[in-house]
Every structure is written in structure tokens, then in C-alpha cells.
């Protein structure tokens, strides 16, 4: 967690933590394993009342941050999600809500935003990879496949990126019931985070379904990538912080050969290194959140640096904490696997560490020819 929180931010984090502890303990997470939705809509609506869906939305649209830096505020919520491996479409709903608030027309703002804000509607974000658009006058028709989209099968709307034959990119918010759109639920490692593929076969886009215009699309998509990176990293930072805390406690309580495991120097030194990893993960995530919130020149760089850093180190940390727990660590009964599932899924979605390393290299060297 950011060590320099305002009182309001500290309150938001504490309130979210108390709420998740009460409403979404890991027993509740486990109980949702076979639930097709993967989250409890009642809990999600109550969370929306706490601000989970409104922090990136303009006040004029019914949203508002607590600190003036909505991305930093929302990162605190995401961190609490990681700490309790909470279910719920936090990342896609917020990325899409911000995009609508920032650049959609009146109709979408009036018809879609209120539902996202009060938690009664869900939006999915199809990400930066475009499907193909055929443009004929006012008529835009989309064709293509988006292989992995979080919460697509649970969503009412999906924000899709497309590129036309001239290379012009754009985005549209489509109902998930649109003719020609097929959503196929997928299996996956996380017990409650649901993904689906989306196939578009001649899906017509009306002008008032467009979000933003041709000129601003690339910047808007880059912004979405950065916000997604911050939220994902914050979730991972919260998850590994919790795993590390559990491990320190366990090694202090557990005796072997007459002394606590935590008294063996070989294990103490590993915990020291893991503490350092937890702190570096918090540090770079906080830096990325601030840069993305303030839209500084370093935002793209720091967002991808955070993704490479957490993606590379978080899974290793959790795996070694499992090792430090011994046999109990690889049982279904222990909660460690819930965290391992979450950080492993996060590592491979919204860009792998390698994808983000390539983005960094592009910034430093220009695109590879």
C-alpha cells in the first residue's frame, strides 16, 4: 500500500477491507467455484455503494474520487481485492466506466453509466487488440475474434476495439446481446474470475455506440491499458502482501526440532528477500498509480515496468511461500492456492511480463523493425 495516504484514502481502504472480510471471506470465494457468474451480485451492489465503480467517473456523471487521484484511490480497492482474493469484475467495469465518462456520447452516458455505477450492470473490456472493421459510409461492421475477455459472459455491455482497412482505430460499446456476437465461456485457473471468448460476425455498430473518435482512439486505448496495469498490479501487490504475512506468522508458530521455523537463518534470509520483493512491488505499483493518475510523461513506462516486475516476481514469491509452508501448502484446504491461482492468472492476462518488456523496449529504442 502507498505509505502516504490521506485520511479519506485510509478510510476507503479500511472500509473496503472490513467489508470484504465480512462479506467475502475465502469460504465465500470457495463457495462460488461452480457459480457461473463467479461473484455475488448483492455483494457487488453493496461494494458499488462503497465507491468500487465510481472512482474514475467524473462527478458530473455521478462519480468522484476521494483524493483527486481516482486511479490511486481505486488501486487501494484493488489491493484489498488481492488481499482477500475477492471475486467481482473490478478491473473491466472501472476501465469501461472511465472510458464512457471520458468520451462517450450523451446516450451511452445516460443509459449505461448509472447501471455500472450502482452495480446493477456489468461491463467487459475487450482490450487493446482490435477486430476488423468494414466501413461503408455511416455503417461500420465488425468481424473477428477476441480470445480472452474477463467477465464477458456475465456482462451487459462490452467495449470493443476495432481497426478499419485504412488502419484507423476506434472503440464501440456494444450490448452483449447484439446480433452476430457469440460469447463462449472458458475454463481457467482462478476459482471465481471468469473469462470468455467473443466472436464477432458482421456486427453492426451505430454511430451513437462509438466511444471517442478516430483522432483520440489511440490515446484512449493506451490510457485503458495503463489503468488496467495499475489495477492488476495493485491486486497482485495486495495478494502477495497477504501471502507473505501468512507465511511469517506460520513460520513463527510452527516448531521443528524444538525451535520455531522462523529461527532458522536459512529461512529468515529467504523471508528477508521476500519482504524486499513485497516492498519493491508496492513501491513500483504506487509510482505507476500516481503517474497514471496524474498522466505524466512516465505513465506508460511505469505502468509496464510495474507489470514486468510484479508479473515476474509475484508468482515466484507465492510459490516459495508455499514451499515454506510445507505439505499443507499444496492442499486444497489451505487458502494459499487461491492466491497462487490469482497471481498466476494476473501474470498471463492484460499482457505478460514479456509483452510489457517489449513495450518498454519500444519506448527506449523505438519499435523493433
Amino acid at each position: 500500500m502507498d505509505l502516504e495516504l490521506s485520511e479519506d484514502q485510509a478510510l476507503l481502504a479500511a472500509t473496503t477491507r472490513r467489508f470484504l472480510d465480512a462479506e467475502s471471506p475465502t469460504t465465500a470465494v470457495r463457495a462460488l467455484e461452480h457459480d457461473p457468474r463467479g461473484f455475488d451480485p448483492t455483494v457487488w451492489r453493496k461494494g458499488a455503494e462503497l465507491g468500487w465503480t465510481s472512482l474514475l467517473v467524473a462527478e458530473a456523471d455521478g462519480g468522484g474520487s476521494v483524493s483527486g487521484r481516482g486511479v490511486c484511490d481505486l488501486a487501494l480497492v484493488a489491493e484489498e481485492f488481492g488481499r482477500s482474493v475477492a471475486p467481482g469484475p473490478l478491473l473491466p467495469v472501472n476501465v469501461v466506466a472511465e472510458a464512457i465518462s471520458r468520451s462517450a456520447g450523451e446516450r451511452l452516458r445516460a443509459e449505461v453509466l448509472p447501471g455500472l455505477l450502482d452495480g446493477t450492470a456489468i461491463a467487459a473490456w475487450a482490450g487493446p487488440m482490435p477486430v476488423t472493421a468494414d466501413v461503408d459510409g455511416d455503417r461500420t461492421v465488425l468481424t473477428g475474434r477476441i480470445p480472452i475477455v474477463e467477465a464477458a459472459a456475465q456482462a451487459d455491455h462490452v467495449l470493443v476495439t476495432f481497426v478499419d482497412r485504412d488502419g484507423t482505430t476506434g472503440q464501440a460499446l456494444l450490448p452483449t446481446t447484439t446480433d452476430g456476437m457469440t460469447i463462449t465461456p472458458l475454463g481457467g485457473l482462478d476459482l471465481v474470475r471468469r473469462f470468455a471468448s467473443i466472436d464477432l460476425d458482421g456486427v453492426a455498430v451505430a454511430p451513437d455506440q462509438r466511444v471517442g473518435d478516430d483522432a483520440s482512439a489511440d490515446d484512449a486505448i493506451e490510457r485503458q491499458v495503463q489503468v488496467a496495469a495499475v489495477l492488476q498490479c495493485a491486486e497482485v501487490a495486495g495478494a502477495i502482501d497477504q501471502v507473505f504475512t501468512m507465511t511469517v506468522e506460520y513460520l513463527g508458530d510452527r516448531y521443528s526440532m524444538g525451535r520455531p521455523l522462523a529461527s532458522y537463518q536459512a529461512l529468515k534470509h529467504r523471508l528477508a528477500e521476500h519482504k524486499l520483493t513485497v516492498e519493491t512491488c508496492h513501491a513500483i505499483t504506487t509510482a505507476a498509480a500516481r503517474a497514471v493518475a496524474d498522466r505524466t510523461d512516465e505513465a506508460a513506462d511505469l505502468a509496464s515496468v510495474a507489470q514486468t516486475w510484479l508479473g515476474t516476481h509475484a508468482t515466484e514469491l507465492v510459490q516459495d511461500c508455499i514451499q515454506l509452508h510445507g505439505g499443507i501448502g499444496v492442499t486444497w484446504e489451505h487458502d494459499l492456492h487461491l492466491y497462487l491461482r490469482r497471481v498466476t492468472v494476473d501474470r498471463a492476462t492484460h499482457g505478460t511480463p514479456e509483452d510489457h518488456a517489449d513495450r518498454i523496449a519500444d519506448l527506449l529504442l523505438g519499435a523493433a523493425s
Partner: protein
Amino acid sequence: MSTDDLEPVEDFRERARVWLAANMPPNIDAYFDRTDERRTVEDQLQRRLWDGGFAGICFPADYGGLGLTPAHQVAFNGEVVPYDMPYSLNVPTLGILAATLVDFGSHEQKARHLPAILRGEERWVQFLSEPSGGSDLAGVRTRADRDGDVFILNGSKIWSSGAYAAQFSMCLARTNWDVPKHRGLTMFLLPIHHPGVTVEQIRQVDGSMEFCQEFFDDVEIPVENVIGEVDDGWTVATRLLVHERMAVGGGSQYTSGRSVGHGGGGGDDNDLIDLLRARGLAGDTDARRLLAESHARRLVARHLVERVTGGLRSGALPAPAGSLMKLFTATNQARRVEIALTLAGPEAVVWPADAEGATEIAAGIGRATLGRQGIALGGGSNEIQRNIISERVLGLPREAAADRDVPYKDVRHGSR
């Protein structure tokens, strides 16, 4: 004076910006220049800061400082980047020894030395480690025996950087052998060019001669040169080490501009980028990802320092958390040197006699590998930092120690 009466930070920043532009020469990247000529230039730069009223921003006003806040120092640091600065005075003189003197010096010690330090007239070093072992710092065997108004110092210290070019030191010596090791130490203010003190330079693997060993033969130290209390030197040494971790991490409120040994991810990636291009690897996926990792590590280091120094200042983190910066600086730097070595290829180990440009960069990387472990040893080894983090940040059980609660005269030492 309450904080409300101080010059507002933004006013100070503006005033500093104007003054720096008019008075300080441009930055010439002389961070690692250790020649006598450079030292003289830096002493003069420090004098210029003093004359301009910008020396010792957070030092007490009663002792020549400006008595301002860390926020003023941070603002100043933001403005000095384009200018040449007395970098080598930051560590150890200002950030470690002068800072410790502020905390523990007597009025007379502070009045005599702090203004002189801020004028660029005194360089200081710490005499802590000894030839018999560096990690067991409290196990020092250099002895100081009371004889009336003086202590008589005998023994030897080692690994003191730049002692041959400094005038004063803080020297940790044992004054009481009948109590356990931490309780019989005293910190002394010791002039280096003083009868009975011999300084020898040690040649390092990279050819540099910065490290020194000192020998003390019946050196007389007046009682008024005790820093803090007699037999309470461990308290002073512990604080000195806290200042060291802050200063080396780049988070000291007592230093202006970049510090040598700075772990804060300063500099840029330009050398590696030039190297990649020169070797035709700018389009190579593996090479690009290694460059990205090196860059990422630089930024992570910078933001870890920011987080930890902020947390230490606000009290969100305990003082031993400074070891997080020290350990990361060392392990991160090791990995970055390895990345550079990979990217440099054979020219890192064999180079043209007239190496320049990319071949000189590659040769520099090769030479840097030789001293790579230096930063993992100096100022407390990685292993000691891991002990500190696990025991004093995480609160795990202490290591068993055969010398705990035993009079130090009865403790076995050295090699069998």
C-alpha cells in the same frame, strides 16, 4: 522557530534556481572522479554553496546550517541536477558523519566542526570495521584506555574510504572489557593526521586506492573528544549506520544532489542503448528484453528508495527498514551488471588498445564486474542486511550468539 515562519518551499526553490544558474558550473558527470584535483574543486564548490547561503539546508541554524526542512532539501535536489556539485562530500562527510555529529556531538564539537564542514574545509570518515572481522561490528578490539584527561588508543581499522584525504574521523573503540560487547564501546572524534596514526592505502581489484587501513600506536585522545557518552558508543554507531543507509540510498536530508554510491536508480540507460545499437542488437528480442529489465530495475530501485525514505521519515517504517534499500541496491546492481555483461559480449573482456565509443562502454562494463561485489560488502554485507531485516523489521527470533551477556574479555575471537 516554528515551521510556519520558514521560507515557503516554492519560494526557496525559485531562489535556488536563480542562484544556481548564476553561480554553479554545469554538470560534467564527475561522480566517480577521485583525484586530488577533483577533491579540491569539490571543496571549492562546497565553499561556493556556503557563500551563497545554500549549504547545510537541514543542518541546525545555530551551527552554520539553514535550519530548513527535508521538503526544502528535496526541492533543492530537484534544481541541482544540471550543475556540478561536491558529490563526494555527500557520503560520508555530510550524510553520515556530520549527520551523526548533529545527533550526538557536544555543543563545542558541533560549533567547531559543523560550520567548517559546511564551508568545505573538513572531510570526515568513519573508523568502524577492523581487520579481525567486519560483520561483527560490535566486536571491535581497538582499545582506548583512560589515562587521566586522555584516552590512549591502540589497534587498527580498515575499509575506510578516502581516509588518506580526510581530516577527521569517528572512531569506535573498546573502553570497557568487563561488560558484554555492546556495552563497552565508546565513539571518539579523532583527527586523522595526528601523532601515532598511520594511514595506508589499499589497492582494489579495479586499481583504485580509495580504501585505507589505519594503525594506532598509543594515540592520545582528549576526554572532550568522546562523542555521546563513554561506554555508550554503540548507540552512536547504530545511529551512524542509520544515516549511512539513508545517505547511500539517496534519501538523506543532509546531502545535496546525487551521492556517490547512490542506490536510487540515478543515471539513464543510454550506455546500454548505444551498445545495443553498435552491436546490431537493437532488433533482437532477447537483447531488447534484457535492456527493458535493466531499465525496469533502475526505476524500481528509485521508487523503493522513495518509498522507504518517506516511510522512515513519517514513521510508517522502523529505522532498520533502511536495510531494505541497502540490500536491494546491492542485489539489483549485481543483476544489472550481469545484464550489461551479457549485452556487451566479448568486448567486455578483450578490447582494442584505443577503445572508444561502444568498445569503451563494453570495456567499462567488464571492469565493473570486477568490483561488483563491493557494494554487497561495504556498509554491512548482504548477509548482515538480511539478518537486520528478518530480526528487526520482521521481528523474527535473533540468531544464537556465544558472546551475548558475556564480559568481552572472555569472548573468543579471531581464527583458531
